[in-house]
């Protein structure tokens, strides 16, 4: 039904896609997995009409088509549901579903809202979402908004004769288990009217929902399997192309922290965000902070790096009482920060890798008060080698790197700056399995070398696996504290009951 034939795409020197061919048949769910940098996002962008391939063909029912823009793709029945949602929160559900498609509801120049709401109700019924189409999208929770996105994609049915192909890009990364189950149930029910391409890093989920799975690696399709005939470890191996090690979080490498306390909080509070947080972080220790949105943990990490000075309580760095008013002060105190939005806060993507690596400590690349470009290049090359960053040279712009490599550049910066305290804010978000494992190894390297780490993560599993100690927060307060030694990790359930 939908076929991609030898699609290729390059960005400058980087070959993002190389002769990619795949097929989507009617009434099926096709899973697409691969490391970051494997080309999945590029492929999705080409399919949804946001980007054009350099070579290759897209065929719908055997006929070659050119997807000039997303609107054209829509006309061919292709709709994309984005990872970061595309709903307008201040508009109603109905308005969102029919955004830019209001024409059928126009009467004498005005939109007939009642008809639009009725039509929206029908669309929502297709996905089994029972909400009032007149309510504002912003009032729905994330999972419900995900369903509205799906309904919006399905609304295409009424506008085109072409068979529907819905592209789902990481739809479950921020969903809770019960919402994932509901999404899958809906998808199965909808298979009679649409096919899906399901892109995800969650291998178990991909296997659960897909009929067939394509594995991509380094811009190529390296395998195509029936979901029934393959297991997650098999997929993992195909994705990374190497032996999958037993201990995912390198628990065996978790060594006891040293005695000296480098970062201490006593009754730390930021009015309106969190209150009375206390901990004593030692050299070599990884401290996890677990909590849902609104627990105050996001603000806590911002306070530890100077974005949000505390309104009361004490913060001691290396024994000295401090109030970090700006990130500049935090860096001067020896703290490094891996932000969750690496392309916005982590890297200056339009300058070179070398410039990004020395950004926090430019003095390391300076001689007699001027920048020594040769020295900077060798510093960058050292870290490129040490962290195995995949790039043709240190002069490459960071914009051209894959997510995992970009994250490594951010890490390189703080390692080059010899930060002894690191705040890791969702450090593996958006990274594939292989890149995640490399980050875990680096975290173990860093703590073995004596760095003190504060970690917030997307998954409880990752927090438990990586940390020595875990603080659980809820509604701005610390509700529990867990020790997580390598051989006696707490169970997720135990943490969950203090989180919600």
């Amino acid at each position, binding site marked *: 039904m939908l076929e991609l034939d030898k699609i290729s795409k390059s960005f400058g020197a980087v070959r993002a896609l190389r002769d990619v061919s795949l097929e989507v048949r009617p009434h099926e769910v096709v899973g697409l997995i691969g490391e970051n940098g494997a080309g999945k*996002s590029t492929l999705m962008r080409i399919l949804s009409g946001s980007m054009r391939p350099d070579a290759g063909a897209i065929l719908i029912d055997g006929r070659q088509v050119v997807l000039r823009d997303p609107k054209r793709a829509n006309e061919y029945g292709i709709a994309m549901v984005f990872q970061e949602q595309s709903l307008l929160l201040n508009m109603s559900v109905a308005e969102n579903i029919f955004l830019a498609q209001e024409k059928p509801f126009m009467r004498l120049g005005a939109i007939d809202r009642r008809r639009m709401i009725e039509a929206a109700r029908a669309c929502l019924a297709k996905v089994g979402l029972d909400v009032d189409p007149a309510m504002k999208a912003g009032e729905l929770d994330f999972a419900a908004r995900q369903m509205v996105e799906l309904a919006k994609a399905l609304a295409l049915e009424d506008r085109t004769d072409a068979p529907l192909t819905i592209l789902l890009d990481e739809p479950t990364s921020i969903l809770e288990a019960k919402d994932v189950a509901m999404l899958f149930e809906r998808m199965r029910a909808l298979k009679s009217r649409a096919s899906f391409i399901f892109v995800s890093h969650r291998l178990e989920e991909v296997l659960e929902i897909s009929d067939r799975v394509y594995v991509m690696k380094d811009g190529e399709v390296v395998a195509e399997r029936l979901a029934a005939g393959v297991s997650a470890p098999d997929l993992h191996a195909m994705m990374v192309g190497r032996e999958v090690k037993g201990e995912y979080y390198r628990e065996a490498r978790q060594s006891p922290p040293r005695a000296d306390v480098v970062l201490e909080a006593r009754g730390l509070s930021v009015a309106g965000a969190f209150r009375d947080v206390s901990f004593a972080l030692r050299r070599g220790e990884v401290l996890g902070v677990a909590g849902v949105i609104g627990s105050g943990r996001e603000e806590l990490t911002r306070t530890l790096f100077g974005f949000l000075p505390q309104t009361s309580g004490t913060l001691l760095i290396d024994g000295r009482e401090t109030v970090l008013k700006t990130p500049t002060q935090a860096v001067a105190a020896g703290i490094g920060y891996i932000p969750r939005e690496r392309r916005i806060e982590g890297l200056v993507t339009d*300058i070179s890798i070398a410039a990004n690596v020395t950004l926090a400590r430019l003095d390391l690349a300076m001689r007699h008060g001027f920048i020594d470009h040769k020295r900077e290049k060798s510093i960058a090359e050292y870290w490129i080698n040490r962290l195995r960053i995949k790039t043709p040279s240190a002069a490459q712009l960071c914009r051209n790197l894959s997510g995992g490599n970009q994250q490594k550049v951010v890490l390189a910066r703080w390692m080059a700056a010899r930060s002894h305290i690191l705040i890791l804010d969702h450090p593996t978000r958006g990274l594939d399995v292989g890149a995640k494992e490399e980050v875990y190894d680096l975290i173990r390297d860093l703590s073995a070398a004596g760095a003190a780490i504060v970690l917030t993560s997307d998954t409880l599993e990752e927090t438990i696996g990586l940390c020595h100690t875990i603080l659980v927060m809820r509604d701005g307060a610390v509700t529990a504290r867990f020790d997580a030694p390598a051989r006696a990790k707490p169970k997720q359930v135990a943490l969950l009951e203090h989180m919600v």
Partner: protein
Amino acid sequence: MAGAAAQQVSFGGLADRLRPYTPLFLLVFLIAGVNAAEPGFATLTTLSVVLSDASILFILAAGLTFVIMLGGIDLSVQAAASFASMIVAELLPRVDYAAFPATVLVGLAFGLASGFVHVKLRIPSFIATLAAAGVMTGLSLLMEDGRTVSLLDQGREESAWIAGAWLFGVPNVIVIAALVGAGGMLAQRYTRFGRYSAAIGAGEPAAIAAGIPVDRYKILAFGVSGAFAALAGVVLAARLSSGSPDLASQLLLPAIAAVIVGGTAITGGVGSIGRTVVGALIVSIVRIGMTFVGVDIFAQQIVFGAALIFAVFVTIDRSKIGVLK
């Protein structure tokens, strides 16, 4: 996959790769073009006039380049240059050669002040600098009740180093501009200020999160712009042997055009002093070329407006703007 790619309007593969060289091609094309229309343009004398004009424009535009690269704008350069011309004319009889550094320092001070207002009081740069321009123009008019100040014999003697032509007959202005250009390029490539300006312009949130004291460098960039504008004013005063409240009038648009047409994006991040050199040459050739060919001097502003729109269209990075307001 790396998202948030810079989005400049694309003209297709080869055109995109040649894009950074467009200003250079344009420069060559213009020289050839004007010379074809009015032979006698590409002579040493005319070129010398063009280069002298370009030099003053370049000094003005060079400081502006730093501000624009940071993502801001300095609309006070014209007023600052005029103000500086008044100050140097007033000071020369009183303090001799010390008048020159003193005037540049005044320019620096006003620049730092607008930078401070923009950064610390969070007032958009176009308003902060527009206000600064108003203040400086007001002061210029107040100083001598709106009149010009002549550089008397003593003043003329002491500014011979600007107005003269000591090096093989090459006007000193050109040498001064060349030194300014070299200094600017070295600063960009080899100093903290240059590196941080580029980083702040290309990714301010990331620069903040890397610990760069962004506020400080932004204010400094405005200071530099003010200082260079003052230097341009000093040079103008020397060439015209007088200072006046509107000496540099009609130069704001060409100065901004020089930066943008040279290839520095108004959205910040991309750009260099080197590009502004080419931009200043292009603008000067157009200005002088237009006069050569007979275009009305007031109509020239129309040409600049159009050229500016086209240049911004070609260089602007839409991914930085999100929604164009």
